[in-house]
């Protein structure tokens, strides 16, 4: 007998409900409004009053409306057929909704129950299984989608029966397992999981160490992210957060990409809808959409489901990680999620923390980021969730609660800078303020040695030193004037400009320049560092700029050519000739 209640008060999307029985924190309830049922989540219980946030507009709601409690928390449905779908924050399939406009209270089943899947059993009758054991496999867009024992089943079970290989629908019974007491549990290909609880089915979570190639030079070369790593991209508006995020999600070498468009512009999501079915995954040649799941809760969609959307996305990511896959999760923007928390906290009249955000904001961000990671599963396989979130700091000020809370937990920091964006130096990632903690991990160094010859990390550090020196010299030139400093200062400055123009800047809209594979990045860094490690002879600072502009121009032309094409090699020769001109 489920608990029932009646609406007692309404402020915007916060509803007070009087209840007649037990309710639990974060339980889902449905509020009747005419023929519609509005979904809501319990945020606070105070005596007989329950405070719930409604995932919809509350226009027209009245005191006395009936409320029915569902007996479970906000859940997602996990099973084959998640890939390529466009969901809202509550996992409604947006493509199944009819009409141009979203209708309030319209919910649907997120998977296709009629589709037949080619099922292949992975266990036999008599095998011992437990939560997350792979009992079978279907092919989902070329990914081995493992059918697992539901994560909420505790203890060890024995397989009593399992179907033969063949075509089945997701809700067909594919196996029966028996517990110690002889109770039978029929299993389908589908399970449900509450989004706010992490799925913990791994045995260990070591420090991540494998490079996750993104094709973005300022990331891979300068501040690499790893499989199972965490990173964040803060930046004022107009500095290219979204373009950078899209570039990463298009190019990263991941099995599954989940994009949570959380409280951002609808047209940006439309761009993904339009491009991803057309664009090819640079690593497999298949269409990007085949490996992608989009959780779209744009800024004009209900605020409460904005918060839900990041958890929905993370839970789906954890599900695929449990299959031993490499998952990349991008959330744009986590600030909108924090703002949703703030709106609710304000309405519940909680004592505010800094900038009116809830007091526990930093803890909430921390526990969310900690759900990412590289794990070893019980069957010795590994899987990972790499999480990159964008942060939209109010007023571009990085000393605000969301940025600070995130900085404590994310290991890569890609600081987008207004001044760089103003000068059209894209991606506008500040090379000096940004960092990747992974580059300091010995595990990472060992790993990168298997991919790149020589002292790669040493070179990267040298590059950063030149950039740092270049910046210092520039400040001195600004103070002392061009002729107030030695000529070598100009040379140092222009070396840092070569690095900036050739390595760091990258044209996200050019077909070739937008993606740089690791071997090409290795080639370019070697070339640029060769240029930087030379000494040059100049008579006056006037020559320095003209000379290095020529170098930059030839190197930049290389970035627009196919790697090792004739044209490319022509420019390589050109650069080498220019270097010889002035080399000491």
């Amino acid at each position, binding site marked *: 007998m489920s608990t029932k209640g009646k609406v007692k008060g309404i402020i915007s999307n916060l509803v007070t409900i009087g209840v007649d029985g037990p309710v639990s924190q974060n339980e889902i309830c449905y509020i009747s409004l005419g023929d519609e049922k509005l979904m809501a989540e319990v945020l606070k219980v105070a005596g007989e009053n329950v405070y719930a946030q409604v995932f919809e507009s509350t*226009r027209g709601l009245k005191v006395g409306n009936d409320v029915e409690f569902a007996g479970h928390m906000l859940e997602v449905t996990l099973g084959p057929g998640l890939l390529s779908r466009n969901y809202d924050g509550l996992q409604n399939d947006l493509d199944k909704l009819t009409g141009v406009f979203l209708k309030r209270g319209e919910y649907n089943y997120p998977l296709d129950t009629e589709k037949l899947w080619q099922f292949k059993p992975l266990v036999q009758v008599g095998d011992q299984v437990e939560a997350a054991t792979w009992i079978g496999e279907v092919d989902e867009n070329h990914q081995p989608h493992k059918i697992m024992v539901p994560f909420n089943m505790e203890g060890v079970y024995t397989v009593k029966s399992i179907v033969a290989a063949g075509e089945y629908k997701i809700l067909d019974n594919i196996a029966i397992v028996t517990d110690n007491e002889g109770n039978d549990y029929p299993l389908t290909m589908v399970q449900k999981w509450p989004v706010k609880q992490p799925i913990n089915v791994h045995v260990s979570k070591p420090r991540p160490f494998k490079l996750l190639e993104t094709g973005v030079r300022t990331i891979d070369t300068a501040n690499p992210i790893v499989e199972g790593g965490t990173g964040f991209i803060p930046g004022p508006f107009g500095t290219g957060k979204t373009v950078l995020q899209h570039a990463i999600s298009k190019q990263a070498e991941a099995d599954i990409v989940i994009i949570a468009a959380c409280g951002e512009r609808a047209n940006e999501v439309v761009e993904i809808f339009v491009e991803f079915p057309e664009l090819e995954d640079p690593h497999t040649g298949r269409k990007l959409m085949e490996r992608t799941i989009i959780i779209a809760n744009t800024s*004009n969609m209900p605020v409460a489901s904005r918060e839900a959307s990041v958890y929905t996305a993370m839970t789906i990511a954890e599900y695929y990680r449990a299959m031993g896959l490499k998952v990349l999760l991008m959330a744009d923007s986590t600030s909108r999620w924090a*703002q949703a928390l703030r709106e609710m906290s304000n309405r519940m009249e909680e004592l505010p923390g800094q900038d009116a955000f809830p007091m526990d904001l930093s803890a909430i961000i921390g526990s969310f980021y900690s759900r990412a990671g590289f794990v070893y599963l019980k069957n010795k396989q590994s899987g990972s969730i790499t999480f990159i979130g964008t942060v939209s700091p109010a007023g571009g000020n990085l000393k605000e609660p969301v940025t600070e809370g995130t900085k404590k937990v994310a290991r890569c920091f890609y600081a987008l800078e207004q001044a760089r964006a103003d000068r059209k130096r894209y991606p506008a990632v500040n090379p000096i303020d940004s960092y990747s903690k992974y580059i300091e991990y010995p595990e990472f160094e060992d790993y990168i040695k298997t991919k790149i010859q020589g002292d790669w990390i040493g070179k990267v550090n040298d590059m950063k030193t030149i950039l740092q020196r270049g910046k210092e010299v520039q400040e001195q030139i600004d103070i002392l004037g061009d002729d107030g400093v030695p000529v070598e200062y100009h040379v140092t400055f222009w070396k840092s400009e070569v690095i900036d123009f050739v390595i760091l800047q990258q044209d996200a809209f050019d077909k070739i320049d937008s993606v740089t594979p690791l071997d090409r990045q290795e080639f370019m860094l070697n070339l640029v560092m060769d240029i930087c490690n030379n000494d040059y002879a100049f008579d006056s600072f006037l020559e320095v700029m003209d000379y290095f502009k020529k170098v930059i121009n030839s190197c930049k032309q290389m970035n627009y050519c196919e790697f090792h094409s004739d044209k490319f090699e022509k420019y390589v020769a050109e650069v080498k000739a220019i270097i010889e001109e002035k080399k000491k």
Partner: protein
Amino acid sequence: MATKAFQKIYTKINQITKATCSLKATGISNEELATINGRLAQVVKIMGEEVTLQVFGGTEGIPTDAEVIFLGKTPALKVSDQLAGRFFNAFGEPIDGGPEIEGEEVEIGGPSVNPVRRKQPSELIATGIAGIDLNNTLVSGQKIPFFADPDQPYNQVMANVALRAEADKIILGGMGLTNDDYLYFKNVFNNAGVLDRIVSFMNTTENPPVERLLIPDMALTAAEYFAVEKNQKVLVLLTDMTSYADALAIVSNRMDQIPSKDSMPGSLYSDLAKIYEKAVQFPAGGSITIIAVTTLSGGDITHAIPDNTGYITEGQLFLRRDSDIGKVIVDPFRSLSRLKQLVAGKKTREDHPQVMNAAVRLYADAANAKTKLENGFDLTNYDERTLSFAKDYADQLLAIDVNIDTTKMLDLTWGLFAEHFKPEEVNIKQELVEKYWK
């Protein structure tokens, strides 16, 4: 107003603030409209029997025994083709002396478009202003504000853009507009002979501030009618959104909500997004494009209003007086159109994106040279050349009085490159240099 047979009249108000009234009432819906001694008000909070109403016209002179009548509906607008050419107040009532509109009554602030049903914007909006078309190309279905100080001529530029944009309908939402500016718009549209394409919803500084809260939703409800029902290209002008946000702050303050940054309500982002996200390209061909104005205080874009706006809109346009040429220009550094790459080089000539970036980069070099000059340092020959380029570029292209097509803009820019620079100094793809260098 719909009248019911047995309308209950309440006559006991418990609490009155500058913007709200509270009373005991039952059977009331959230966001329902009511009248208080004839003044329109809307339900914003219900706690048991205690209902709080936001009074649009302000609460001055409301007695505790005022007659409160609940209307059983939320704010709505009657939509039909009769809207064209008409001027309305914030409640959608004609203020031009003309007849009431006949048509279907539609709730304002309706549902959002399903993101998967949107079409990607792809139609260029040509304005003739190179600071916009060349550097910050506008696309139909886009939403973009002018960030401007109150003394800048943003309303004039906006009126020019509206007239040149070839929209089927122009919907003007005025919030806290001075009466002079209201008359300016009326005159410009009248003189251009386009009054039959205009629909206006006006709240001037003479009207109560809280009424402003209805203007954007009224304007966008009318826009949705023309864009969805008639598949028209609709341009919505909202000026000034800062006045709108100030009105939001007044109401939330009276409701004892905890203010966040700059005394603005914590929901400011969502409130603004709900408006701006109405900009859309519909699959059937209709579109809503929003051009808004957010006035700044002393150019400060870190204030909560422009800051939140910038995160919502698809770019922003800055105006600036360029003292070198004595004209107002569209600032190429701070202005941005996020959708420009959907049309630049696709609907315009192939060299557009690279030319645009190269010119802005050189203009940035000129800015550095200028700083050097101001600090009393010698300029290099390159510095000198960037400065003379910058002057020509500002005068011939960035100034807001320019009115030419994009191909002409590109040719002009190539001309300036050739006049002041060597090909390797502009950093453009070799193929393009070979084809277009003058």
